[in-house]
């Protein structure tokens, strides 16, 4: 009984904040008037700052740290709640699905950059590999679409392996240029290569699982219908949950330790037997796999892809998300992605200026808060575990 109360006491701040954020997000997505949106944003910032100032953040953090699984569940429910609220608003749901998919992709980059320290400036390119794989497979094969998601990831990992040798042999700046060169190479290749649609791009079939058409609005009863993006939000959430758990467990294991060790000091790591090559390849490949899976899902949702989806600029946005969120912190990714995707869409006034603003924002973060919005905490191998 009292134990239950204790648990509840721990959970309360977390759940409370989750509910608050949910309501806030719904408001933000619902209101149209620019003034109202601006006001909401200002209010949000103030509240967050205040909470941080008076230790609210710490309490919320505690709920997440100690009752992790419970809180994860709460978050999922919150997302579903927002989805339910906008069940027929195609555009809002498209935004939400996009956010979810981008988070998956960024989890991949986070493995590479956040843990292993290999900065990959070709994120959008590997995302694109996933997209094009989906496009080709849906058109020319009868492969089950859930498998196509995997195929997208595998393809990205395979193509990524072309870069492994140069990335391994080179160090920071030099390996950065390798990925940059690949990012540009990839886009130009798509543009000049006709079999993949050239600059025109390719149509992609919508997802279809066991005859369920993801790209048709869902009809319930006579005149009640749910926008088809809900399908993708659900699938997206499932994939995200898997990816998230995967990355989390990786970080909280000896593997995560190895990656941190080699990122922070390769020489020292080598002197304690770490096989640098093995772990760099592992992180790079797994990362690309996740990014590719996200790409495949994205392509099927959008129904159409073109090289302009996968420019160097897009890769930069992915990297900015990692940095803004707090390098190596999965939750940071979620927050950062939400901000970077939703804000410009809602605040139409900044829509046209978004790249400018993102750029400026990242610069400021690098100068004044390089650890990002949600700095990565120390590793806890087993959540809730206490030494006896």
């Amino acid at each position, binding site marked *: 009984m009292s134990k239950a109360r204790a648990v509840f006491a721990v959970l309360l701040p977390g759940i409370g904040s989750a509910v608050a954020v949910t309501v806030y997000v719904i408001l933000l997505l619902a209101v149209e008037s620019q003034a109202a949106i601006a006001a909401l944003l200002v209010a949000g910032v103030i509240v967050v700052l205040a909470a941080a100032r008076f230790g609210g953040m710490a309490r919320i953090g505690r709920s997440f740290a100690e009752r992790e699984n419970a809180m994860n569940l709460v978050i999922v429910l919150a997302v579903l709640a927002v989805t339910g609220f906008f069940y027929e*608003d*195609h*555009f809002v749901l*498209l935004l939400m699905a996009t956010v979810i998919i981008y988070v998956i992709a960024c989890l991949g980059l986070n493995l590479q950059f956040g843990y292993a320290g290999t900065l990959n400036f070709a994120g959008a390119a590997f995302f694109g590999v996933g997209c094009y794989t989906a496009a080709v497979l849906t058109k020319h094969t009868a492969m089950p679409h859930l498998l196509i998601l995997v195929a997208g990831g595998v393809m990205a990992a395979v193509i990524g392996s072309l870069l492994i040798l140069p990335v391994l042999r080179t160090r920071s700046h030099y390996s950065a240029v390798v990925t940059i060169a690949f990012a540009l190479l990839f886009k*130009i290749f798509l*543009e*000049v290569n*006709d079999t993949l649609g*050239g*600059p*025109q*791009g390719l*149509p992609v079939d919508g997802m279809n699982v066991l005859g369920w*058409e993801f*790209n*048709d*609005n869902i*009809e319930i009863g*006579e*005149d009640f*219908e749910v*926008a088809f993006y809900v399908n993708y939000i659900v699938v997206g959430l499932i994939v995200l949950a898997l990816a998230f758990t995967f990355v989390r467990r990786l970080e909280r294991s000896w593997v995560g330790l190895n990656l941190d060790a080699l990122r922070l000091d390769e020489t020292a790591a080598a002197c304690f037997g770490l096989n640098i090559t093995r772990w760099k390849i592992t992180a790079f490949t797994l990362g690309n796999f996740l990014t590719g899976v996200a790409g495949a899902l994205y392509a099927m949702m*959008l*129904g*159409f*892809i*073109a090289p*302009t*989806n996968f420019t160097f600029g897009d890769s930069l946005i992915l990297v900015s998300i990692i940095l803004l969120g707090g390098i190596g912190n999965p939750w940071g990714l979620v927050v950062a992605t939400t901000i970077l995707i939703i804000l410009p869409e809602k605040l139409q006034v900044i829509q*046209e200026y978004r790249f400018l603003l993102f750029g400026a924002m990242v610069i400021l973060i690098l100068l004044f808060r390089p650890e990002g919005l949600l700095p990565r905490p120390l590793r806890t191998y087993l959540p809730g575990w206490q030494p006896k």
Partner: protein
Amino acid sequence: MTAIRFRHVAVFAAALALGLSSAAVDAKPKVKVGFIGPLSGGTSSNGIGGRNSADLAVRLRNADAKAKYEYELIVLDDECKPNIGVLAATKLGANKDVIAAATHYCSAVAITTVDVYHKFGLPIIVWGAVLPDITYGNNYKEVHRVNGTMINQNETAAKFMTGLGYKTWAIIHDTTDYGKGHNKYFSKFVTENGGKILGTFGVTSDQQDFSAELTKIKSLNPQVIYFGGLTPIGVRIRAQMEKLGLKAQLEGTSGIVSDTFLKGSGPLAEGVLAFREGAPTEKLPGGKFFLEQYNKQGYSDPPEAYGAFAFTAMTLILDTIEAVGPDRKKVRDALNNVRGANAADSITGKVDFDDNGQNTIAVITKYVAQDGKWTVWEDSEYAKGLRKLKGM
């Protein structure tokens, strides 16, 4: 699949009708209509011209006391990129308050978005894109187009050029469907008319340096360089031809009939040929009226070549809504019915849709850049022989 989608459309269209009839009680109910065009990027001048013209149509209608509804124009940018276009189209289509829209200058975008409009049952009229398949590549009832296609354009171009006595061509085209289409049709017609194509070069739409391609063309030494693409690379190609001392005549498509091309190329534009469907604005039946009104509104940018079509498309949409009420399905059917006896009058002349919703006006205008203006060939000093084209 199509069938299912249709039911959906029917369902929410009906729901919509209900909602509106109840709303229609008070004086002037609001009705939303959409416009999509390239408002940023290399072809933005055309997009903005079109946007202003559509906006003009709406303003005039709202100023008209007899109008049943008060219209609001929702403007979206497709950046002339297919993927962005799809998002914009989804945004419009998903917004049930939007009854109809005038959409797209870039063929590459239009050809990819028609599926979306069909999916959401949003009736649209294309105001600038010229790729035939946009109307002929499908049998979507939602898709219409007031301007002609590149087929007529290139047929006229080929006949005219061979008529002038040109024999050999080199073709540069961007690798979008737009450029490819032009390449396809022009090659077809020019060879039919006895011309010879020495070489064809696909280029990417953001390529900077063409010296390699042009150097190769130089060695082929054609009389004419045909360019199937849009203004930005048109400007670059013209400039770099000069650098490499190419003496050939440059012949463009509707894609370069823009003031930006003239500004971008400066004196080098002199003597460049281009072809466009539809008569030049000032020569249109209602052209004078249109330009007067346009200038009266004091827009900062010119209507550009396709402004008149955007105006026509939007006016046609508004007329239809006035006639059948703000209901996507009804508007769609009414538009499909604008044909033969019911052909509509417009500032661009009669609008007469065929089974595919393609306006069957086939007038093509030949332009030549003269003293920094796109001059109709017949009134140009070139036609009169006072100035000479190149490559002869």
